[in-house]
């Protein structure tokens, strides 16, 4: 019997069957399943979906659904901001203390200045910064987020938001991928696999970067705490800071919608595809598993990655800062050269230099920036405490409120980190889309910061 004969026979049989035969196959499967289930399952009581249903009616209700969503987001961010603040200072004191000790030890045994400087003021200082700035928020944010994930709340978010996504020509499950993006944009890009339609999946991939990932949260938290919240009474600090970060996140969501809409009107033209989403029953999260996955899988993983890029970045900064040319050094010179462009965007040259060095991982932007500002040997200790940072930035380097706000906007909108770009390439198998993801985000960042800076200057605010 030849394969072709069988194929031809199958085709002729198929053409003879009534058109709805595929429906019939599924229908008979389900009918059988129904009968078997009926015989095997007895409902002892009638309180089937009671509690789940009550919760669901609350979290998706027309009146309370969206406010609850916003409240949960604010609460998680507030918890992260206020909790991180407490721990961060402690960790900084200990780590910088170790740095002092190590430096003293090296001096004692007569190491040349450049070895001491390279190791302790370059590599170690940048590592200490990354750990003290990143570890605390991650240790709070990731478990809180995993809790909501395991509980089964995230599909409800997709349910609440789908209409907006549909209007922008995208898929409601994009909100699930955005939620993953809070943790890590590369993870968010991989999570877009839940979207079946290639067009909508591409939109989700390209816009995922507008959600600030955990590497960028510390930057936002620091700026919100040091600049925005500093002028309020201490009792309100954590709320104001959290409120500011929530605001930035919402701006990011806004840009997501805007970019999705523009993409589906231009490069990725098309209509919204089918949307079917299961809202699974709520499950009691397993606390020990949450701690395990969020601390081991996520926190350690992200931190390790950050440290791998922080160490060489610290080394590069130290070298740049210690190659003296006249009475300036290389780092300063590059920063000065970038300065006019930076000022145009309401930032400065040092920030741009930090971003260039931080392309492998956004986490190290703040540490890099700090190190250039401090310069080599000028200030061997990291400024612990918010007032010290404020002092360094404002009085020492001419920062204004505009710089802080524009840096927050820039941190939110600028290009994805190298890992994310690589992930986008792997998922789309196309240089074109990977390039576009960079061009689009960077373009948005430049444009927005330029506009706010110009506007602020025009109004005489800065």
């Amino acid at each position: 019997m030849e394969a072709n004969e069988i194929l031809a026979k199958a085709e002729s049989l198929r053409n003879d069957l009534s058109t709805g035969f595929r429906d019939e196959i599924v229908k008979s499967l389900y009918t059988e399943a129904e009968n078997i289930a009926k015989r095997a399952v007895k409902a002892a009581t009638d309180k089937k979906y009671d509690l789940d249903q009550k919760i669901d009616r609350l979290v998706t209700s027309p009146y309370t659904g969206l406010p609850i969503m916003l409240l949960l987001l604010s609460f998680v961010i507030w918890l992260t901001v206020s909790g991180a603040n407490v721990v961060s200072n402690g960790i900084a004191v200990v780590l910088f203390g170790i740095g002092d000790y190590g430096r003293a030890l090296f001096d004692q045994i007569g190491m040349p200045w450049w070895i001491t400087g390279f190791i302790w003021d370059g590599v170690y200082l940048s590592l200490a910064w990354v750990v003290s700035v990143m570890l605390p928020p991650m240790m709070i944010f990731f478990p809180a987020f995993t809790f909501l994930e395991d509980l089964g709340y995230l599909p409800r978010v997709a349910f609440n938001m789908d209409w907006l996504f549909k209007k922008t020509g995208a898929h409601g499950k994009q909100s699930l991928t955005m939620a993953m993006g809070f943790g890590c944009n590369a993870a968010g890009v991989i999570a877009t696999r839940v979207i079946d339609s290639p067009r909508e999946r591409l939109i989700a991939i390209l816009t995922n970067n507008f959600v600030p990932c955990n590497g960028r949260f510390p930057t936002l938290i620091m700026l919100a705490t040091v600049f925005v919240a500093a002028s309020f009474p201490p009792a309100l600090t954590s709320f104001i800071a959290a409120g500011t970060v929530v605001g930035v996140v919402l701006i990011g969501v806004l840009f997501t919608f805007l970019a999705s809409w523009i993409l589906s009107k231009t490069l990725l033209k098309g209509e919204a595809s089918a949307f079917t989403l299961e809202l699974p029953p709520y499950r009691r999260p397993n606390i020990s598993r949450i701690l395990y996955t969020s601390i081991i899988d996520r926190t350690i993983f992200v931190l390790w990655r950050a440290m791998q890029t922080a160490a060489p970045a610290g080394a590069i900064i130290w070298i740049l800062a210690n190659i003296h040319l006249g009475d300036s050094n290389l780092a300063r010179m590059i920063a000065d050269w970038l300065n006019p462009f930076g000022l145009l965007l309401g930032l400065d040259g040092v920030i741009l230099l930090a971003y260039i060095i931080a392309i492998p991982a956004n986490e190290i932007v703040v540490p890099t920036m700090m190190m250039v500002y401090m310069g080599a040997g000028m200030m061997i200790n990291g400024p612990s405490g918010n007032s010290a940072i404020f002092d360094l930035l404002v009085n020492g380097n001419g920062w204004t409120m505009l710089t802080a706000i524009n840096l927050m906007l820039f941190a939110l909108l600028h290009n994805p980190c190298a890992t994310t770009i690589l992930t986008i390439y792997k998922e789309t198998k196309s240089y074109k889309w990977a390039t576009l993801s960079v061009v689009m985000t960077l373009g948005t960042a430049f444009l927005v910061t330029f506009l706010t800076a110009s506007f602020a200057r025009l109004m005489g605010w800065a």
Partner: protein
Amino acid sequence: MNMTVWLALTIVLIAAIFIPRMGFLAIYKTYRATRERELVEDALKHLLDREQHGRQASPESLAGTLNLQRGRITRLIEDMETQGLLESRGTNLHLTTQGERWALHVVRAHRLWERYLTDEARMPLGRIHGESERREHSLTEAQLNDLDAALGHPTRDPHGDPIPTREGTLLKTEGMPLTAWQSEDPVRIVHLEDEPALAFEQILAAGLRLGQTIRILDRNPQRILLTDGETEFRLAPAVAANVSVAPLPESEAAKANAIPLAELTYDQRAEIVVLDEAVQGFTRRRFLDLGLTPGTVVYPELQNFFGDPRAYRVRGTLIALRKDQAAQIWVKPV
């Protein structure tokens, strides 16, 4: 210095023109060949269409359809004769067996593309014909078979026209023109002719769609008055002739008393009667796999701020569906 620059520029220019496959000349040649092939295929389609409608094709009709000068047409016909695709007998043109095979291939490509654009790309019905015209020339036999399989071997395009099988058999278009239907019994729209485009536009603008059940209320030489039970439609007889109808199949009769799932009120229980014929391909399978099969009892359980999507309880699980999708599932309240 100047001399060198000029020399370099000239070399670059020559290279840009003559480099195989990437040079301007090569690109132009490819373009010419593609354009020629498109012309041949469009001509074949015209001839097949005429033959199926029992009418004769002539160089004039061909020139009209392809919008070409007489001289160009003569050359085209000569070329096609040499290739053994057509024969001219007197003023009439006829397809050879080989020509018919090729013509069927193009028609198959066109209709499969229409199916794809509707089911998978969800393009509006008004745009698919033009897009398919562009795409129909690009696929090989094997690629077409893959597309066919990926779409689940559809038998009709979104206009209701039959899709030729891979062996090249073409089912007859079912139904009769609306103008020929005399009784007042409800009928189903089985085909909307998409050419001429102007008439098709009017049909769509009136709100008629494939698979719709309608009834003729009144007719006179100026217009035909139709209803789908709610809205009334008016069509000029010339336009109505492009709408083919057939008596209701049994499944459609069931739909008559049903309402779309999207119209159920909160917590109102209903039994699924039938999935609309407009849902095909991947979406239909997804619906069925989720357990949205005829006979299943469902009810809307959750509603969000925007009122869209809603979540329905289906076989013990909450499934969220958008409004336009839920409108394609017909249910009967229980």
